[in-house]
């Protein structure tokens, strides 16, 4: 195999990682603060894709405007879901939230099926079919746009977590919920913030990928499953862990498909998850429980 082919594999893997990373980041934030495995984030990925689809058809809007619109709607729905379903369930038992999350995912999927139908949709990219050819390595203009937007979102999130008061609160609650509560951090309010951020990221990811991957109401279930494996591999509640996990899993999948066989690619994500559970139960960058 020539160098261009190997680089193309690497670029393919990096691109796959962007979709995983945005959803996995939201999941890990929610889990870190509230210890809730929010499977419904998969449905918000689908919502983002549909918002983009309809926004690009609406007069006066367009694909670029659809991105913030999708993120705002995703944030709103995720917060609503958190306040109406998860937080009340969590008061009774943490385990109930697990069942609740699966239930919400199924309900949202079927509502989407009823609202939008089962047809596959694809959003027209504003970049058309334009692409960069870097010595035989192909990167489409839309892929470049997705990589750039993802990088901006990650930097913005990192800065918000590091330098803003709510961001510091989220990190504190994720690291030590009890101690955070003792110093007056309202974990419920921060939890709703985590839901909003996660919902925005998931819907944003859906909108970003909508011109590249045909989607239907069931697309989210697959996305969320893989993202969860990444979160467990990277360390539940760990933001850097989610990022490292997304890149590792995506590259491992890609190179397995490239050098072994495509049918084994998906085994890698779950294989890594199981290996991580054996070797480092807290995940690659997760903290061991006190």
């Amino acid at each position, binding site marked *: *195999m*020539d160098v261009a*082919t190997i680089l*193309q*594999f690497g670029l*393919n*893997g990096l*691109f*796959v990682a962007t979709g995983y990373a945005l959803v996995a980041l939201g999941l890990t934030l929610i889990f870190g603060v509230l210890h809730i495995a929010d499977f419904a984030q998969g449905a918000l990925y689908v919502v983002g894709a549909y918002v983009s689809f309809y926004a690009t058809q609406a007069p006066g809007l367009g694909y670029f405007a659809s991105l913030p619109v999708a993120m705002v709607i995703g944030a709103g729905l995720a917060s609503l879901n958190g306040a109406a379903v998860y937080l009340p369930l969590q008061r009774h038992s943490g385990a109930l939230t697990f069942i609740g999350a699966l239930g919400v995912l199924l309900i949202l*999927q*079927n509502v989407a*099926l009823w609202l939008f*139908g*089962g*047809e*596959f*949709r*694809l959003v027209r990219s504003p970049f058309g*079919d334009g*692409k960069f*050819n870097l010595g035989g390595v*192909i990167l*489409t203009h839309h892929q470049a746009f997705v990589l750039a937007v993802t990088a901006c979102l990650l930097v913005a999130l990192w800065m918000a977590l590091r330098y803003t008061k709510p961001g510091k609160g989220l990190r504190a609650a994720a690291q030590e919920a009890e101690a955070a509560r003792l110093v007056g951090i309202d974990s419920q309010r921060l939890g709703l913030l985590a839901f909003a951020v996660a919902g925005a990221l998931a819907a944003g990811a859906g909108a970003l*990928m909508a011109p*590249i*991957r*045909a*989607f*239907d*109401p*069931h*697309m989210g279930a*697959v996305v969320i*499953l*893989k993202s969860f494996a990444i979160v467990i591999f990277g360390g539940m509640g760990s933001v850097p862990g989610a990022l490292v996990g997304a890149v590792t899993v995506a590259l491992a999948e*890609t190179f397995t*498909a*490239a050098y072994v*066989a*495509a*049918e084994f*690619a*998906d085994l890698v994500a779950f294989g890594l998850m199981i290996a991580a559970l054996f070797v480092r139960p807290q995940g690659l960058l997760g903290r061991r429980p006190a």
Partner: protein
Amino acid sequence: MRLKGLVQRTGWGLLVTFLVLGGIGLPATSGPAVETVTVGFALPLTGAAAREGQESLEGAQVAVRLLNEAGGFRVGNRTVRFEIVSEDDRCTPAGGTEAANRLVARRVRFVGGSFCSSAALAEQPIFAQAGIPQVFYAYATDLTGVARQRAGANLSVRLGPQAATEMAPLAKYAVTVNNHRLFFAMAQNTDFGRSMVAEFRKVLERLGGRLVAEPEFYTFPGTTDFRTILTKARGSGAEALLAIGLVGEMIGVSLQFRELGLTLGFYGSDLLEDPAYQDAVGERANGFFYPWVYDDGVDPRRFTRTEPERMAREMSLTFLNTLKKRATRNHGWGWGTIHLLKQAMEREGSTDPERVMRRVLSGERFELPLGNYGFLACGQADMRVGVASYVGGRRTLMVDRDFAGRAPTVLTPADLCPR
């Protein structure tokens, strides 16, 4: 007392005579004038193949609505109407098992579906055990082969093509018309995907071609990024790509094929003619080849049709006039199931499931949306498909249904019903 006893005996005697006579002779004239036959549909109504399942069901619903609005149809001296019930098999073996058990419990007389091979394989023994004939649409070879024999599903039939029906003419077209002999194959990792690749490979090798590497089977459902497999195809030395998947996957494969600038020939299954595929991929599918199964007479063609396909035209016009949309092959599954049963009932003069299906399997030809054809003893539709391509963004029929049977012959009834 004696008189009273005589009256009583006479009364009982008359009653018994009335009942006996009634039981023997009268129902022919006084039995139910209208009989309702319930047809169950086991289809993927949610999940990765929900659209295909919903369209199949819609085809059946429209066909039944029209028949019932016309007052039903005559079977012997009775009027028969259809009633439809449906269950979601989610395109999975587990979903298929649940759907089949629910339809058995609902006492349906016939079953349509499934569309998905893995679900249909799970459903087949359940319906066979319950004595319910199944008209399925999935392509996996075993459904009219080993699996059917094991299940004892002697009354089940496949309404349309199986993997060999589709892949034999496509492979022949690739080699003999396009001169593509070296192929890279990719398919979803299911009974459907594996059967299609195996049948394509069989004919390709018979005609002197070959696969340049072992086929790549990707996870279904869930794979959306095909760039890595396509990058492998690009550097494989192949002249053409065979890609098998459902509509969503085929959209992804086609777009990413163009993105990566691949210049190989492109061959797929008949799902490439799906309207959703055409909407999403548009002119980027120009020059892609696939088997066509449904011909409503609208698309341009490069041959002269010898036999008009009246049922396809009728379904197409019905959909355009009543639902303001173009009918698809998927609608043909449901519509075809209803009309196959109707025609067999009318000819047999009975609604008895066993008699109806014996008639279906008698070799007689039926007028259906996917052509006019009969059924082989193994339950396989003895039908053929042509090869189509996209030319200037339009679906264009390149060769007719008789292509696989012309020299060199690559498909015979014996290939469809291997012993």
